[in-house]
């Protein structure tokens, strides 16, 4: 059997694991956390103000116009949904592939998914012209006909897909948390904590029969979440691919978007994990440099997939001979928005190549910077797709530019306020590493027992 590095460093016992991971939940927050939380909270309040203005005054406050009818709200929506997919991938897909190293990052990655989906979910609701009527997108029985919805529209597919994804991710994450909540409840010193975590743990007892059913359901959820995560971002890509704009109407979008989602999601996990390891130094034993390195390898792989997708798009545009398709791609690289295209290419294709070098894969400052650049590049990728395809389409008389306003900036930046507020709260209230999943792999790398879970 292959000798591998220990998954958990420091020769921890079962009790050590519980103590280490429960510590942030049980102690008073540090100045660092409080500072970051106040910052995130302020940004969140600013964000609420921006969104309230847009809902109250009109979508015209943003830069959308004719012909660019979709703008920062949709770009940022796809950005956040994409980030969410890495969490499900780590939780579900890597579980199916028996990758034991996922155990220490799965919980936080799945939390990132839930919060990213929550952040993303606001955008399809608020980007509409009359958001107070968004409930009309749901096919509920009514007395107005009854009026039904258009199931042929990708936006409707989105409603089902994103709702299913939000629900299943939330459920999957929560099921994973139940045994850990029981752990915290059993350790709780004051009655309030015991009641709250007791309620959250649903009265979990942890008998062998319970664990047997639990593991089966975990496997089922993982097995269901895998096609789900692939289908959700495929359906999000259909928002573009099912339309007929040159630059949108292409069959490569489903795999391209899924690869891109995994790419940006892992980058966000690396960003967050780097910060978590700095904020909670005891976690360095659970989320080791090996874990970080493996994630960087995934980042590089998916980055190259994305780069391949860019190249094949160009090739197919040329090969198709379609004048509109060819023009869109030349315009992307050399037209008025060419600057955004080159930011995308350098951040997504060029910088991640540094990860060929082991030294950089294992360097915290390097991976932190590259993970941030990857997310910058991925936001710009959605910007390039959305805005450059819309701004110059079939009839040149309609060509125009996106009228970027500072509300657009506010929406983009403010969404991070929402995400970070939720994430920082999570770090204090929930155990950030899955205790019940790390314990079975405690000995991996220490002796010959590192077998299957």
């Amino acid at each position, binding site marked *: 059997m292959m000798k591998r590095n220990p998954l958990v460093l420091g020769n921890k*016992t*079962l*009790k050590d694991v*519980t103590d280490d991971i429960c510590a942030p939940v049980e102690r008073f927050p540090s100045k660092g956390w409080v500072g970051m939380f106040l910052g995130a909270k302020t940004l969140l309040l600013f964000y609420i103000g921006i969104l309230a203005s847009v809902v109250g005054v009109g979508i015209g406050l943003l830069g959308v116009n004719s012909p660019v009818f979709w703008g920062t709200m949709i770009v940022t929506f796809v950005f956040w949904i994409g980030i969410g997919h890495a969490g499900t991938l780590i939780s579900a897909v890597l579980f199916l592939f028996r990758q034991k190293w996922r155990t220490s990052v799965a919980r936080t990655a799945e939390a990132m998914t839930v919060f990213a989906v929550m952040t993303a979910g606001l955008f399809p609701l608020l980007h509409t012209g009359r958001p107070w009527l968004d409930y009309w997108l749901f*096919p509920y029985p009514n007395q107005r*006909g*009854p*009026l*039904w919805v*258009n*199931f*042929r529209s990708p936006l*409707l*597919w989105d409603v*089902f*897909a994103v709702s*299913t994804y939000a*629900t*299943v991710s939330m*459920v*999957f994450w929560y*099921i994973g948390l139940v*045994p850990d909540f*029981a*752990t915290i*409840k*059993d*350790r709780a010193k004051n009655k309030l904590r015991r009641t709250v975590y007791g*309620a959250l743990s*649903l*009265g*979990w*007892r*942890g*008998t*062998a*029969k*319970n*664990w*047997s*059913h*639990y*593991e*089966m*359901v975990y496997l*089922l*959820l993982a097995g*269901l*979440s895998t*096609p*789900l995560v692939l*289908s959700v971002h495929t*359906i999000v890509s259909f928002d573009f691919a099912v339309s007929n704009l040159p630059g949108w109407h292409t069959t490569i979008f489903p795999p391209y978007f899924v690869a891109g989602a995994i790419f940006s999601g892992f980058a966000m996990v690396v960003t967050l994990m780097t910060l978590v390891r700095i904020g909670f130094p005891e976690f360095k034993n659970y989320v080791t440099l090996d874990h970080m390195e493996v994630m960087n390898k995934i980042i590089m792989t998916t980055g190259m997939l994305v780069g391949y997708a860019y190249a094949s798009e160009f090739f197919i545009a040329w090969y198709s001979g379609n004048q509109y398709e060819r023009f869109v791609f030349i315009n992307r690289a050399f037209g008025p928005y060419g600057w955004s295209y080159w930011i995308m290419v350098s951040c997504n294709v060029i910088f991640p190549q540094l990860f060929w070098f082991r030294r950089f894969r294992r360097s915290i400052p390097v991976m932190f910077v590259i993970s941030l650049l990857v997310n910058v590049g991925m936001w710009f990728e959605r910007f390039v797709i959305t805005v450059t395809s819309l701004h110059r389409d079939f009839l040149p008389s309609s060509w125009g530019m996106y009228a970027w306003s500072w509300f657009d900036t506010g929406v983009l930046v403010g969404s991070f306020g929402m995400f970070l507020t939720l994430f920082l709260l999570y770090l204090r209230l929930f155990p950030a590493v899955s*205790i*019940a*999943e790390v*314990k*079975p792999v405690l000995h991996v790398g220490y002796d010959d027992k590192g*077998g299957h*879970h």
Partner: protein
Amino acid sequence: MAKYTKGIAGIWLEEAQILKAVRKVRESGYQKFEAISAYPIHGMEEAAGIKRSWIPYVAFVMAVVGLAAGLGLTWWTSAVDWAVNVGGKPFFSLPAFVPIMFELTILLSALSSVGALFYACGIPRLDPPVIDPDLSCHKFAIFIPHNDTGYDEAKIEQMFKELGATEVKKTEY
């Protein structure tokens, strides 16, 4: 208020020990015993004679229900109840309905699996019994209820101690 059953529990500190203990308990003829741990132990199902969970059947059946529901919803609303010419497309646009059907399949299957889990484990429940708070941390336990076949307190205590239990106590579960 849940009803607890009286019985006897042994507490161990090592995973290997409890696996051996569970095997022995089962060989000794006990059937209603419970093995408690903070995490799922590899090999426990075999040792305790636990049959494969029935939840996958629920998941499968509900998946089929979800698929049918998706098909029924889209077909009935688009081709029967309110058939509207949308983009010149046929009223029953099956290719376009596939994503909806797929998502409902997954949704119903996932939620029903979790529902089945709750049923199978008897959760949520207020005030679950706790033999030892460290059982959700680093300790393991076997509990044999008083109404199990061949229940003999002294014999069980003896067996537990031979198997390396650090603690044996009379308790409720």
